[in-house]
């Protein structure tokens, strides 16, 4: 159930559509892009990590990423928190105000459905409100993890988690 559907989808399956949108976005965002963040009820630790992206150690600006307070100037939306229902209108207005092509990143375990179950107050998962392009797990995701997520979102880095299986044979240690 996407309350606000993307208008420029191509491809049959949702995954193909996402891949096509990311490709289109990557072509547009080869050089630089602007990021808008929306907090949908997070504990603010994700915001703290997002803020750290601007610290000299990570220096997001060198990669051509900038934060903007205006959704009309934004190409990429980073959403934190478990998508509280009270933020529905704000989220949809923000998404609608962003020019095409646009990319949505769900930041942290909350919008990925890890912390709060769906109930009267929260959706529990961001994809019930907006079409999510990139999922960035972590509680919170470290700035380096966010950087990886951003570069995956604009097609400058390949995602890695699909190749990992999170188990290994017993090794004599």
């Amino acid at each position, binding site marked *: 159930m996407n309350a606000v559907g993307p208008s420029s989808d191509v491809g049959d399956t949702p995954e193909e559509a996402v891949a096509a949108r990311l490709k289109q976005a990557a072509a547009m965002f080869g050089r630089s892009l602007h990021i808008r963040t929306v907090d949908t009820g997070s504990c603010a630790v994700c915001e703290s990590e997002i803020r750290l992206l601007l610290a000299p150690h990570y220096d997001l600006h060198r990669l051509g990423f900038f934060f903007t307070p205006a959704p009309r100037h934004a190409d990429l939306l980073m959403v934190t928190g478990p998508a509280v229902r009270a933020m529905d209108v704000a989220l949809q207005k923000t998404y609608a105000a962003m020019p095409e092509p646009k990319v949505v990143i769900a930041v942290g375990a909350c919008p990925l459905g890890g912390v709060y179950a769906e109930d009267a107050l929260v959706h529990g998962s961001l994809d019930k409100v907006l079409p999510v392009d990139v999922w960035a797990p972590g509680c919170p995701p470290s700035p380096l993890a966010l950087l990886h997520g951003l570069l995956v979102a604009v097609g400058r880095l390949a*995602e890695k988690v699909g190749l990992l299986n999170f188990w290994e044979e017993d090794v004599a240690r």
Partner: protein
Amino acid sequence: MSIWFLRGLRRGVVTTRYPAVTDRWAAQLPSPPLFVPAHLTAELVERLVAICPSKALAREGAYLVLDVGACTACGRCLKAAGPAARPSGVFELAATSRERLLKRIPVKGGPP
């Protein structure tokens, strides 16, 4: 021309597109668990599923399903599992599909 640019040239410091070498401490950040199926008994799996506060672990037949997206890396399963789990140290977890974050881990002695 900025003096910083000349200094950078002289000292060989360049701006990278992405860290060529990740920080040494990156592997010590809280990270999702990595399981060792040889020690993963059915009984242990039940216990792990019960103690996971974010419901990132679930039993599915002969598999333990780890939802990397839901994992908050709290470390409770690491404490309870002993040799059956250790921190994975992986932080580059961004995925373009939610399903890719679901990992199926074989349970010891389960039906094939």
